[in-house]
């Protein structure tokens, strides 16, 4: 059984449990980011610019970024 997954979220290294999703990583890093993604005010991207969903599985060694949506104003 795999034990942990090491990722980066917004350049912050995080050690996550096996089976953890982006949601868990966001909650670990900053619950406000989690709320923003939940409210569709921001999205999560992997290190190649692909958008990933909140409940997607975290992958070992991958860097993720949260990018807030630009407002009209």
């Amino acid at each position, binding site marked *: 059984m795999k*034990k942990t997954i090491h990722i980066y979220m917004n350049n912050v290294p995080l050690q996550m449990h*096996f089976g953890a999703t982006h949601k868990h990583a966001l909650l670990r890093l900053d619950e406000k980011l989690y709320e923003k993604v939940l409210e569709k005010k921001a999205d999560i991207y992997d290190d190649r610019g692909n958008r990933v969903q909140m409940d997607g*599985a975290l992958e070992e060694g991958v860097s993720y970024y949260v990018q807030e949506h630009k407002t009209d104003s």
Partner: protein
Amino acid sequence: MQAFRKQHSFHVLRFLSIIALTFLILIGLSTDYVTAAENDKKVTIIHTNDIHAQIDDFAKLAAYKQKEEQESDIFFYVDAGDIFSGNPVVDMNKGAPIVDLFNQVGPDLIAIGNHEFDYGQDHLNERIMQADFTFLSANTKVLDASLSQPAPFKVFEKDDVTIGFIALTQAPPATAPKNIEGIEFHDYKESILQTMEAEELQDVDVLIGVNHIGLAEDRKLAEELDVFDAIIGGHSHTEMQNEEVVNGTTIVQAGSHLENIGNMTIILDAYNNIDSIDWTLQSVEQLTEKDEKVQESIDAYNEQMEEELNEEIGETVALNRGARYQRDTSLGNFWTDALRRVVEDSDIAVTNNGGIRADIPAGILTYGHIYEIEPFANEVMVIEMKGKAVLDVLEFSYTREGRNQIDLQTSGLEYVIHVDEEGNYVSVDATVGGEPIEKEKDYTVVVPDYIGTGGSGYNFEGKVITGKAGLMTDTMIDYAKELVETEGIIDVKAEGRIQIKQEAPEKITVAEARDLSVGERVTVEGIVLVDSGAWGAEGFYVHDGTGGINVYQFDQEVQEGDRVIVTGEIDDFNGEIQINSVSSVEVIGNESIPEPTIITIDDLNEGLIGELITLKQGTISELEKVDDYGTFEFKVKVNGSNESIQIRVDSRTGLSFEDFAFADADVVDLTGIVGIYNGTLQIKPRKAEDIVAYEEDIEEPTDPNEPEDPETPEEGEDSPDGDTEEDSSGSDNNKDEEHAAPGTGSNEGSQLPETATNTWNIVAIGGVLFFVGTGMLFIIQRKRKINKS
């Protein structure tokens, strides 16, 4: 000449032959080229992944699939796994609705994802039997389990093209361990190499991996193995903008929840060699065509379930999970109370924070809410565990993978995690049913099977009594119904079952604490001067001989005389230093509080803040009520001093304005704690008994012939039959009499009673006059003698 002609004719013939041959070769080549272009084949593969039971757009998926199939020479639709879990419409029926819809859409195959095991192997078997398509997994090896061994690959031959598909499942799958008991999940690379030995795969023209292992693992596999022409992935929910090509293998993935459909076009030449692979991502939102028959099925499923899910259970307060990483929550308490209730005689119920998926808003609770907060269809498991194993679980729950946060909500079990200044685990204290947990005692523990069987790394070591005590959702619905029936509303709150306590700073005196800056954490020990709550929340004053200080806190009720150790932060409340943000109040004993210090008004200064003092003979003035709850203030002035002091009586002391027995101009002795509010010193009585009528202190005459005895009855009290008429009225009347005496203008006070004190005074005055007269006589006689001489 003939000879020349012959020779010439030969050269001409040879020249013409070369021309003709060249022409034929060119024609032949040209014909061959044209034939090849006409023989190109277009293979279209549309794909989805991680749909997670989202069925609403299946009509669009069906219409899109039909359109693409019509426009393609060779067509496939594949899904890369995780079609289950995430929508009660599907989950309540263990996946049957979505398999039915897939049957209508018509995929060729689906890779088994980790969530395909969520409903258990028996239900997965049922779905496999229900499906008109094939579930694949090349690395799943069923050893001793009810699951039917899935096929590792599938080969199709269409239009003289042979295309093979091999599927991989996340190893091990992230699902409840019990769902995969008896199944092995093998290494990806080894599984592919072993699968490739199959005879059917030896001559495939195109080989596609359909993997539910995540994009990073797909890349790794493509680097290590040169076998796949393309990999269609899932599990990481990656919405790829463009295909990636790794070691000649095209890798794609289409997001999740049926928001997109991937579309891969493979061009093969006449020899079935791959000319090109192109890929696009089709947004489902942008699709407009729907298959009407499929839509009818979707509507029927939603309508059927909507009715069930919208059914009302009853009224509820808001059940929140927001603070679950720091303490117990209302939702966690509701949840675990429901679990404990379902198993008779159970001692403890726990659930992991990760399983609580949403909040429940205040209002009407519906069945749908329950399925939203618990969408995993987890079952209730009962384990008999030693107390030590429970403590180990609690330690693990806080420390696992370095999280350092609360992870278990509890019922029956209350616990405190002690941490150091950095938040690292130090120890845990736990009680079960209010008693300290015993390491060797057996406890009946109710848990969700996800963690009870090892999910998230938990080890609930003990004897499993049952792994099937019902669905978590059912237990919560039943408990909610019971609460509504018995109490009319679901009113569960956070109540301090779980706490994190930081290691206390080194103990210092109250005087030292008072000198610290706001925000500094302190630990002090002292005697509680007043029952908690006299001035709001569960606040109280504590004194240690060096000084006193207010402790403002909410959690711990204390009594006057309790010896306590308090940890909190220095705070400034409108000019008064106090301890706030209290993390710990530990009662370690009970003893007498120190006697109040008797002071005069002139003694009052800020150095006395927090001290218990008594001020005698104060005359009340400016008595007024200051709020609707009965809190009141007045001033007192003492004869001989020009100063007055403000007295504030908070109704939470138990004494309110309406019950106050004194009025302006009354003279009282009062006891209280010195405080300050916005620069104004004030005395704060703690209870009704702290304000009494002033009684003049008059020293009793001492009869040198009688032994000193304070109990000696006064005149009129020595009758054999005891009580006089006045005496029989009791102490309450005495109190009333005291109230009336000073400053009331009562006629009874205009003539002093005949007492021993008055007689003694007369004797004393006579003595003094005697000595003065004798002295004067002596002086006169001396003067006469001098004059004579």
